[in-house]
């Protein structure tokens, strides 16, 4: 009885879904491992014949190239590891400003497209159809080469009120500078922030237990967050000075400079993404049935209260998930910076660093890992926020 031939055993396994699953999955793992092994072998061999060493030692070597915009101290003598950080910070800079600008513009256009004014609604619709259907890279080029590229030279800068200059090398703004003992100012700010967080926590518990909200929390928090650090700073003698850009013989000096690469990228990214966000916002607001508005109006709520208490909370549930996608797209799209030479992660690391070291595998892997990390972090936070706002269903 125990003499079951191998063939029948195999046939039996094949017919049994559980065994077939196990077989299939093991086969898949085997194939992936084999392909992976082959790729690693090929890569090691190819790198060896080209005389490229593997590993991350190159990160501590001196980079030897300059970067036109850095948020942290950097010059040619710093290491490739430092260029990685510089590029990463520049990516974060353009992404975060882009997200804020795109959200603002997107909400504006989205709400405008629902306006009762026919002309305004059509104009918003035209905006969406126009910018959504043209490649982002083309728009970046347009702003960079066709608009900012034809600005006057530094000598013939356009000037507004002696403190704002615009020329082909960028936008020059007054730069705020704090002098004196700034630690008290920032210390007070952090302290007030911590107290407010604690207060909000207490307030929420109070609301859960009693059903009533603590009075005037929002006004109080905004006012105290601004005034208390200011008073503390004023008492301890912190002063705010503006470092104005000054026109020299050949160039402008001082102040805060926004390089044209950054400006073009920000303009293109936010205008392009805003077209998508506008559609998301429009769909979200339209998803709230008109009965909800009418019911709220019948209860005697005014227009502003209806929007704030009834329409927007329900619209946000529909808006947040696609909005998350748009934020992620914007962050990933910021990598197009490399095409106009804005020193983002892809440009200084996957571009210049890769060319200088030849460490393709490590460099590309690190670049991809960073974007993956950003993507996963943003989706995690947006999912948490989404869960917080989602409808409670039984």
């Amino acid at each position, binding site marked *: 009885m125990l003499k079951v031939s191998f063939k029948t055993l195999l046939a039996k396994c094949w017919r049994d879904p559980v065994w077939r699953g196990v077989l*299939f999955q093991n086969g898949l793992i085997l194939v992936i491992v084999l392909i992976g092994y082959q790729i690693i072998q*090929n890569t090691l061999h190819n790198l060896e014949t080209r005389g490229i060493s593997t590993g991350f030692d190159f990160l501590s070597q001196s980079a030897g190239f300059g970067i036109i915009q850095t948020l942290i101290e950097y010059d040619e003598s710093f290491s490739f590891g430092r260029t990685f950080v510089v590029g990463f910070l520049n990516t974060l800079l353009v992404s975060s400003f882009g997200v804020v600008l795109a959200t603002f513009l997107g909400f504006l256009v989205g709400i405008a497209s629902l306006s009762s004014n026919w002309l305004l609604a059509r104009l918003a619709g035209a905006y969406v159809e126009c910018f959504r259907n043209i490649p982002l890279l*083309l728009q970046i080029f347009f702003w960079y080469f066709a608009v900012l*590229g034809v600005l006057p030279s530094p000598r013939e800068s356009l000037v507004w009120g002696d403190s704002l200059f615009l020329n082909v090398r960028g936008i020059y703004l007054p730069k705020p500078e704090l002098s004196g003992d700034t630690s008290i100012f920032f210390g007070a700010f952090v302290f007030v922030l911590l107290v407010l967080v604690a207060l909000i926590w207490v307030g929420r518990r109070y609301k859960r237990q009693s059903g009533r909200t603590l009075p005037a929390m929002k006004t109080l928090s905004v006012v105290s967050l601004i005034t208390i650090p200011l008073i503390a700073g004023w008492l301890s003698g912190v002063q705010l000075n503006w470092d104005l850009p000054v026109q020299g013989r050949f160039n402008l000096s001082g102040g805060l400079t926004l390089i044209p690469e950054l400006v073009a990228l920000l303009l293109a990214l936010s205008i392009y993404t805003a077209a998508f966000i506008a559609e998301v916002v429009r769909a979200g607001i339209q998803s709230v049935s008109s009965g909800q508005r009418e019911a709220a109006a019948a209860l005697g709520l005014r227009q502003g209260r209806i929007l704030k208490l009834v329409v927007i909370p329900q619209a946000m549930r529909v808006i947040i998930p696609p909005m998350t996608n748009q934020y992620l797209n914007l962050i990933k799209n910021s990598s197009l910076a490399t095409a106009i030479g804005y020193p983002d992660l892809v440009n200084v690391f996957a571009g210049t660093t890769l060319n200088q070291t030849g460490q393709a595998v490590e460099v*590309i892997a690190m670049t991809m890992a960073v*974007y993956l990390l950003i993507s996963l972090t943003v989706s995690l936070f947006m999912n948490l926020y989404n869960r917080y706002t989602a409808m409670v269903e039984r």
Partner: protein
Amino acid sequence: MIEPRKPPVMNDGLPGWLKSRLFSTPLNTITTLVILYGFYLAVPAFWNWAVTEATWQASGSEECSSSGACWAFVNVRLNQFTYGFYPVDQQWRVDLFFLQLAVVIGWITLPRLKGKGWALAYGLLVMPFASWAMLYGGFAGLQTIETHLWGGLMLTLLLALCGMIASFPFGVLLALGRRSKLPMVRAFSTAYIEIWRGVPLITVLFMASVMLPLFVPENVVFDKLLRALIGIVMFQSAYIAEVVRGGLQAIPKGQFEAFASLGLSYWQGMIKIILPQAIRLVIPGIVNTFIALFKDTSLVLVIGLFDLLAIVQSGLSDPVWLGNAVEGYLFAGLVFWLFCFGMSQYSKRLEKQL
């Protein structure tokens, strides 16, 4: 006795429309006037620049009028923008490709034409290979045209088309894998999808162009265009997978149970029952990913391929034609816009039909 009332205010016709749509409140009136003033400033100025004072025929930027657009630049370069560096005497092959594309797409999209299934099958299974073979040549007396000579609109269309069609089967497989009951298959598919969706296409293209040659044995040489295409397909199939997954999730559980109770195997049930319904549901979503891919093909310029945008961009640095950036970008933008807008209108129409 009821007092006589005033007649109701006229609310229809042009005056009624104007009043309700443009001048209903003071704020609305101000908005309308501001927008109209903006039009008054912008439209005549643009018209003058683009049409009235534009130059259509010239042999260099210097012959163009300074106050109008220099369309002569686009005019002179039109051939290059369309065909790239494809030899002029061989361009009939590209025309044939365009024609074939137009016929197949027209057949699929225009209503009231019979045999859409056949057109679709031809478009998906035969056209990409036939087009590639025809463009590359090297058989039946056709001259071989190396891929580095391909460019312009032709390359944009070819990349978008091949990228989309090749990524579709992988996308469907990945979507099925992500919904599979087998944990290893599910984990692999999920990881693949999330990784490719989490990184920018530009890094994928870099990877395809720099790392792919390292992955294969030394003596295997990959064409640059083919490498870009592999990168695009790897990237795009993850997006297709998510769209198809949406369709799969929308199929009621009863359908799965029904095919199982009929005794159909997993693959039989999927191919005959589930996928046709699921894909039908998500055709608008697929068209939307196609629009995204079409725009994204412009990124191949960072790895040195000359698609429409790249060829316009390189034309701008020609010393004879300096200072025509606006005209060049407007032209390229218009071409991209026409294709994408057309596709988005088609997707909207489908959404209404389904």
